[in-house]
C-alpha cells in the first residue's frame, strides 16, 4: 500500500475547507484511505469527525496511506497535493 508523509500547509490547520477537500477526495477514491500522525493509529480519511479529531495544525506532519489499486499512486499524489496546499484565502 503506497503511503507518503506530508506537511499540513493551510495556515488554519486541517479543518474547514482544507479538511472538506481532503474528505471529498478520499471518499471519491474508491479504496480505503487512511491518515494519521506518524507512529500513531491512522483514521479513515473519508470521515470528517475522525480527520478533525487529529487536530492537525499548520506545519504538522501526517502520513497518508492508500489501499492497493491500479491507480493508488495517482490517488496518493492528489491527496498529498490537497494537504500540502494552503487553501485559506
Amino acid at each position, binding site marked *: 500500500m503506497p503511503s507518503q508523509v506530508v506537511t499540513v500547509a493551510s495556515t488554519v490547520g486541517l479543518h474547514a475547507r482544507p479538511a472538506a477537500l481532503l474528505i471529498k477526495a478520499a471518499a471519491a477514491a474508491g479504496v480505503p484511505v487512511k491518515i494519521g500522525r506518524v507512529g500513531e493509529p491512522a483514521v479513515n480519511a473519508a470521515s470528517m*469527525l*475522525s480527520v478533525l479529531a487529529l*487536530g492537525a495544525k499548520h506545519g504538522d506532519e501526517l502520513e497518508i496511506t492508500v489501499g492497493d489499486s491500479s491507480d493508488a499512486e495517482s490517488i496518493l499524489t492528489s491527496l498529498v*497535493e490537497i494537504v*500540502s*496546499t*494552503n*487553501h*485559506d*484565502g
Partner: protein
Amino acid sequence: MSLSGIGVSPGIAVGPVRRVTRVRLNEPVPASPRAVFKALDVVAADLERRAESADIDVARDVLSAQAMIARDPALVEAIGARLLDDIEYPDVRPDIADAFAGFKEALASLGGYFAERVADLDEIGDRLLAVLSGKAEEELTLDEPSIVVAEDLTPADTAALDLNFARALVVAKGGPTSHTAIVARGLGIPAIVGCDGIMDLADGTIIMVDGREGTVIVGPTDGEVQARETREDSLRARAASVVGPGRLADRTPITLLANAGNAQDAVAAATVGAEGIGLFRTELLFLDRRDEPTVDEQVELYRSVFEAMAGRRVVVRTLDAGSDKPVPFINAIHEENPALGVRGWRLTRTADDVLNRQLDAIALASREVNVDVWVMAPMIDIPAEAAEFAHRARERGLRRVGVMVETPAAAILADKVLAEVDFASLGTNDLTQYVMAADRLDSRLSDLTSSWHPAVLRTIKMAASGAEALGRPIGVCGEAAANPQMAAILVGLGVSSLSMAPIALSGVRVYLAQVDRATCVRAAEQVLAVSSADEAEGIAYDLLGF
C-alpha cells in the same frame, strides 16, 4: 426600557418578539436502528439541499461541513455500536447522546476552531431527534411579521427560517462579522448582535430595533418610533442623493464597478448602480473540481453574468488558479513557494489548453449577449506575456484586452507591458504582498501587508504613470478600492476606475462626490512622501476628511 448591542445592519423596525430556541425534547423518542439511520440520512440530505440553495458563501461552507458530519461513517459506526439489535428501542436519546459524546470530547479538548464544531454536532443531534419524533418542521416557523430574537443564529437556522417575515434580527451573541450580520445585510433588514438581555423578553413583546445605533427599545411610544424613523430617513436620503455614475466634486468621471463571481453577484452589483463588473472572477467554476469544466458549462456561467450586466462593461479575468486558490486537476505538482510559482497566466506553461479553452468560452459567450466584454489575464509579469495574451484574445475576436498589474515587475515596466494591451487593472492585494514580500494570510505579518504603505503607493504611482504615458486606462480591483479615503488617493495617483464588493459601492460614490481632483492629487503627493503606512493613512484622513 432599552437594551443595547452592536448595530450591524442599519434601519428601524418595530414588531413583536419571536424567540428562536432549539427544541429540547423532554419525552422519550422510540425508534429502531434502521429508523435512526434513515433519519440521519434525511438530516444530511436536508443540509446538503440547504447548502446548495444558500445565497451566502459562509453559510454554504458551514452547511456542507455539517452535511459531511451527518454522513460521517465514523458517526454511523458509533451509533450502530450502541443500537446493536434490530428492534424498536423505547428511547434512543441516551444512546445517540452517548455516540456523539466521544466526538464532542475529542473536539472540545482541541480548542479553537475544532471546539466550535461541538455546536455543529449538537445541532445535528437535535435535528436527528426532531426528525425521529416528527417535530422537524414546526421548530422555526414564522407566521407573522416578527423581530427574530435568538442566542445566535447558525447558517442552518437562517436557511430554515422564512425570513420574509423577519423585520429585524437581534441576537445575544456574535460580532459584526457573524453570520447574523451577513444575512441581515443581505436581506436589507436591521440587525443587532451582542445584545445582552434580549433573550429575557417574552414572545410577543413589542420592541423597536435601531440597527444603525444598536439600540432596542421595549414598548416604544409612537413619538419615539417617529423620531427614529425620521432620523433614519434623513441619513438614507443623504446617501441616496448621490446616484448615477461615479464622479468627483469637480465632475471628473471615475468609473465605479463591482467585483463578481456569478450571476447573483452581478445582479447585486446592478442593484447598487455599478457601471459594470470590474473583476469577474472565473475560477469559482474551477475550484474543487476533479475535471476541467466543459466549454459549454463555462459559456453558461459567463453568459449568465453578461446577461445580468447587459449593455454594460464586464471585465473578465481569466483563470487565476494556483497559490491560495489551487485547482486539483491543474495544480498537481507540489510547489515549495506557490505564491511565487505557476499561477495565473503562468498556467500556460503547464496547462496551456485549459486557458485556450477558457478564452474560447469567453469569446463564445460574448457573442451571445449585448455586453461590453473586456478580458484580462492575472499574474502578468513581463511584456512578452502581455503580448502573448493579447495575441490569443484578439485572435478570438475579443477586442478589449488588458492585464492585471500585481507584480512589482509589471508595475516597474508598466510603460512596456501596457504597450502590448489596451488597459490595466491593479490587483492591490497581491501587489501589496509582493512589494512587501509578506504573506497577506499570515497574521503575524499583518503590519507589513497594508496597502497604505508608501512602498505600495509608490509602486502604484509607477504603474499609473506608465499607463498615463501610453494613454491607457488603469483601474484598481483590490480591496483597497473599497476604502473611501484610499479610493480618493488612488484617483490622485492616476487611477480612473475602481472595482469593489457591491456593498462598498455607495459609500465610495458618496465620498468621491465631495472631493475634487486637485485635492486627491495633493493628498496623493503627500502620502507618497511619508515613511510608514500609519502616517500615510493619517494624512489621507486629515486632508480628505471622513
